[in-house]
């Protein structure tokens, strides 16, 4: 089962930048992005999230999102995709740190559920130690 990340952000620049950061370390992990309102503005859309997964070759997707309304669109898309047989895990984590943790977990061969758990654990890892 091919597993990858999906970064859902209001901002395409934020999604691309986060992918760049994660890909610098998790080099072999596929990372999809969905961002923007489809008209060059900020926003998230359930349909675009669904499309991103449908047009990829992933079967298992660990989804990270930036803000609250992205979560609602992410969950809506995840429900539609789950009904179509995809393995969807929506992760509640800091966007950048969570994406990096999940990406690295997949890079070193951990399971999707371990990757999701590591992403969520970043919430409790203060950067000032």
């Amino acid at each position: 089962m091919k597993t990858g990340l999906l970064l859902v952000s209001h901002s395409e620049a934020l999604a691309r930048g986060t992918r760049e950061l994660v890909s610098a370390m998790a080099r072999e992990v596929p990372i999809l992005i969905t961002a923007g309102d489809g008209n060059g503005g900020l926003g998230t859309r359930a349909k675009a999230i669904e499309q991103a997964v449908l047009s990829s070759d992933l079967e298992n997707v660990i989804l990270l999102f930036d803000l609250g309304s992205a979560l609602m669109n992410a969950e809506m898309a995840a429900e539609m995709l789950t009904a179509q047989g995809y393995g969807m895990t929506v992760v509640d984590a800091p966007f950048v740190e969570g994406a990096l943790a999940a990406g690295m977990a997949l890079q070193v061969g951990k399971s999707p559920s371990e990757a999701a758990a590591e992403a969520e654990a970043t919430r409790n890892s203060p950067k000032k130690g």
Partner: protein
Amino acid sequence: MNAIEVKHWFRRYADRILEKKNELTDLDSAVGDGDHGVNLARGWKAIGNEMETFDGGVSDIFLLVSRTLISKVGGASGPLYGTAFLRMSAVLRGKEQIGKDDWPGLLKAGCEGIGQRGRVNGGEKTMYDVWLAVTEAAEKKEPEEATLALRLLEAARKKAEEIIELQATKGRAAYLGERSIGHRDPGAESTVLLFEALHDTVSNPGGRP
């Protein structure tokens, strides 16, 4: 309320959203990301057009509205309203029309959908507060549909006014903290318009919007 009247209701609502697009966007610019009017207008413009030709039953109309909102609106309002209409569509499955006794269950299903999707319970200063007030208002039996529609509208307006003084604790407005107090909630206002359009439709049966 039969399928033709339901389509009138949604056409009227589409017209109201397009009329109030800038006002809703201004409200959202004050407390959120300023996309509420534009996003809703994009979706409801498409729905208004679909209503011209769609000839499915009441449940299918609600389902079409849900699908269009989910695919075209995005933001917070797309999934929230999309879930509400999806749940209401399920309640209407197999029914020829919305009978007077169907309203409490119909609105409750929509309200619960919004509560679950938005993870709210009431008092967070969101559209859910208005949906909850309308759902509660629908529980009292009412022989006349027009009287019921007026009661729903009055409950919606009253709640939208009441929550102006609340501090938002959910959604983008929550980032404003105490400064959200005194502002109208855009989702609450667009919900009031839905019940204004319902009241207009029921008061003018058969009339084209």
